[in-house]
């Protein structure tokens, strides 16, 4: 190397510029700027970090080595679901969300960032059409947070303490909900029977009173679209509780939107709508309600609204009821709001626009058809049972291995054959998943391998 090294990310690291700027502000060295950092707080040594890979070529080589130690679901056949789903992400979705103008923007005003406001308002609106609800938030972090907040919203509206969980819920999600509602609420899990809500037990729990919400999932953690979902709403309302339903948005071209069977607050994660799985890192949480002021007043999230501008025929955008938020009034706001997952919301908007009403119906139909086919095929394999086979399922379904191998051992054997089996729920049970990306041959291959392995 000839001259001093100015890192490509740091333009003013070039010594002449640095000297000129120091002179301009009357400083001897950059040390002058740190005069307020007492000696006792100074690190006084270089950070102990790996030697840098300053050339882009070296960095790419290093990263390629690391990524080479991952096997992706594109390399092999995967039957993993359970909250994160392998769906096809259309090329146009990536094209839009990879645009510099969206990817590197943050929080500009509705003028220089008009595009961001319109794209997010359209996301809210497209989700509103799918959910048949008039109010949808700028996304929160993920479906776990959306569920926690939806329940706390129900708590603030009703002033009641107990939250009844009527569906099977992913243990991790339940962990988040419990932690999140802890200051104000008790979570009462009403155990499911045969994978479905125990309606009598829910009724009895409601009769004890002080219930803020009945919480159900459609589909549930075990993939079941519970026929009791409408009745749970009726029971909740009869007791003065709200009905909170967590749904998988990609099911809604076929499955009824929860608002149509009584849900007051609908929540979930948009990951299935055009967001890559990314090892569980691709999420955005939606919360939706009717346009009732008391419900709207309880949202912590930003809500963008459309408004006129000074010029006829222009759409402008801005924050609806901003004074609710912690941005406006700190701890007096509803929970908190901060940077969350906006671009994944834009991705979901692009996905819904591409799919349209036909695409959403078709993807739902294909997933349900594949799920039913997989259930039927696997249930016929000796040593494999599908415990709730008769219930309507969407994507996920539980499988029990009754042969010589445990669920984990079955997965080991499948992995040796280049297949990711379903997530082991217990020694004998696993959660399998198929979506529109699976072909009949894929499912037949799984069944054939299990015939060999699961005996």
């Amino acid at each position, binding site marked *: 190397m000839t001259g001093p090294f100015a890192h490509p990310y740091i333009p003013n690291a070039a010594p002449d510029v640095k000297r000129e700027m120091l002179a301009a502000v009357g400083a001897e060295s950059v040390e002058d700027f740190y005069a307020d950092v007492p000696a006792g707080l100074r*690190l006084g040594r270089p950070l102990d970090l790996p030697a840098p890979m300053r050339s882009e070529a070296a960095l790419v080589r290093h990263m390629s080595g690391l990524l080479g130690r991952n096997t992706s679901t594109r390399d092999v056949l995967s039957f993993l679901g359970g909250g994160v789903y392998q769906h096809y992400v259309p090329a146009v979705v990536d094209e839009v969300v990879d645009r510099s103008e969206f990817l*590197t923007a943050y929080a500009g005003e509705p003028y220089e960032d008009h595009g961001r406001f319109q794209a997010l308002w359209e996301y809210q609106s497209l989700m509103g059409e799918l959910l048949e609800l008039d109010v949808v938030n700028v996304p929160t972090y993920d479906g776990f947070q959306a569920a926690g907040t939806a329940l706390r919203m129900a708590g603030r509206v009703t002033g009641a303490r107990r939250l009844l969980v009527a569906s099977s819920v992913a243990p991790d999600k339940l962990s988040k909900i419990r932690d999140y509602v802890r200051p104000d609420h008790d979570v009462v899990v009403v155990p499911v029977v045969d994978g479905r809500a125990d309606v009598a037990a829910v009724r009895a729990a409601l009769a004890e009173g002080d219930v803020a919400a009945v919480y159900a999932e459609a589909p549930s953690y075990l993939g079941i679209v519970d026929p009791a979902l409408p009745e749970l709403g009726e029971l909740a309302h009869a007791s003065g509780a709200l009905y909170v339903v967590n749904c998988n948005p990609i099911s809604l071209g076929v499955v009824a939107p929860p608002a149509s069977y009584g849900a007051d607050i609908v929540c979930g994660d948009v990951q299935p709508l055009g967001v890559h799985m990314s090892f569980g890192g691709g999420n955005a949480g939606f919360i939706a309600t009717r346009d009732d002021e008391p419900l709207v007043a309880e949202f912590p999230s930003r809500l963008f609204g459309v408004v006129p501008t000074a010029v006829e025929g222009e759409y402008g955008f801005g924050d609806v009821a901003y004074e609710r938020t912690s*941005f406006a009034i700190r701890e007096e706001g509803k929970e908190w709001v901060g940077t969350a997952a906006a671009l994944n919301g834009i991705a979901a908007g692009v996905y819904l626009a591409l799919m349209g009403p036909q695409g959403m119906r078709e993807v739902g139909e294909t997933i349900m058809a594949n799920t039913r086919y997989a259930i039927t095929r696997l249930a016929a394999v000796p040593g494999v049972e599908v415990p709730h086979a008769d219930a309507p399922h969407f994507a996920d379904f539980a499988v029990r291995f009754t042969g010589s191998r445990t669920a984990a051992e079955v997965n080991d054997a499948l992995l040796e054959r280049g297949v990711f089996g379903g997530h082991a729920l217990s020694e004998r049970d696993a959660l399998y998943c198929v979506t529109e990306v699976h072909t009949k041959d894929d499912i037949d291959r799984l069944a054939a391998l299990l015939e060999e392995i699961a005996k």
Partner: protein
Amino acid sequence: MSAPANTGPVSTDDARIAPKPPLRRFHQARWDEPLIFELGTPGARGVAVPAPEVPLDDTLPEALRRKDAPGLPDMSQLHVLRHYLRLSQENLGVDMNIDVGQGTCTMKYSPKVNDRFVRDHRVSELHPLQDERTVQGVLEVMHTLEKMLAEISGMDRVSLQPGAGSAAIYTNIAMIRAYFAARGELEQRDEVITTIFSHPSNAACAKTAGFKVITLYPDKDGYPDIEALKAAVGPRTAALMITNPEDTGIFNSRIAEFVDIVHEAGGLCAYDQANANGILGITRARDAGFDLCHFNLHKTFSTPHACGGPAAGASGVSEKLVPFLPRPTVEFDGTRYRLDDDRPESVGKIRPFYGVVPNLVRAYAWIMSLGAEGLREVAEIAVLNNNYLMKKVLEIRGVSAPYAEGKRRIEQVRYSWEELHRDTGVHSEEIGVRAADFGTHYWTSHHPYVVPEPMTLEPTESYSKQDLDEYAAILAEVAREAYEEPETVRTAPHNSTIHQVRQATLDDPKTWAVTWRAYRRKILGQ
């Protein structure tokens, strides 16, 4: 087409292009783009879905079948793409503008090469429940990133699970709550102390987690009032949640005393390091005695801001809080990386699975490209840029930098246009909007406006001297306009995608419209 006839011989003067004017003659894209619901062709589709190869399923009961098709537009692929590309052009990102105006947000360059890694299917198409043997690469990235952030903060362990900065603040208060619950002190310790110049999420997350909030205001020099802290602490204190340097850019040199005061009262101290960019490799959370801290990886560690997320947060803790970290942690036995979910005292899950993995990969790659020396250079140049810009900005009529007169600032400054407002009646918000006419923008401050007519600028290491000169020239021009032709500023924007919005309807339940459904119903009466 024929060229226009020349009237005579040409000279080199005819070929000379005049120099650029000092300020850019910018105009934002104005496509006058309709709403997506106004587009489309009946029956058109944007993407074809795999058709079922097996019989359709008919197990759904009638009540759970969707009745009416969703009112989504019917659009061909090109038309969806074109709509969103037009919207993207009507947006400014770091890549497009001199984005020093979003102080506290650390708008820096997000290297393009790092985006490539996360678009690779060996990141994007990993399922979180895959066998650990098939994800050793990404687990190594997470494990090493944790180690590097532990070194940068001085903390013992770091959780990469929080989805963003505020989620990391929440994670920290959740761990504080679990810590005191485990000691049987939670009922007694129900207060959290923060400062008005710390991000509002410190107050809001503490309240959400069930604590009462005490907010300290600055003393006359702009430092959080240490006497007020002494008066506030006591047996009810659970924690101090504080930023340093605060949003004023002033480093609180007595920070270790603050920590000691809270520790003596039996409380914990959590350091909001959203403003860490100027002190990387200079001073660390641990060095000031903090028990917890957090970084925003989308700020300090370069991951893109993505219109407001996905971002990523990192929560660092000292040894005594390690049992309470979110689960799972990533462990390494010398040969294999694994996820440890067996952590009985853990606060549990903050979000699904392990964190916003794409941004963990980007942050890892960014640190790896810079190393220790590079990180320190980041800090030093960010601070140099800030003090240089401050010098230029304070030469502008009507602006000041309240507090700590004569002192240097770290990575940002909260300025005040109070004098300009008094002289002209023009507000800071209006100046920020007018700045958009020159291809940039700025942000005022969080609420409440403790500094009147605020403007917060944070020129990170990514901007050149020429960028900073241009930015200061834009502010100077808008300030001149405010004094000489204030209507130009008040009626801005003039060169933007749209004109001034009528905000009033957004606060009225009769007129707010959060979706197209609501707009049609309430405004169009359909």
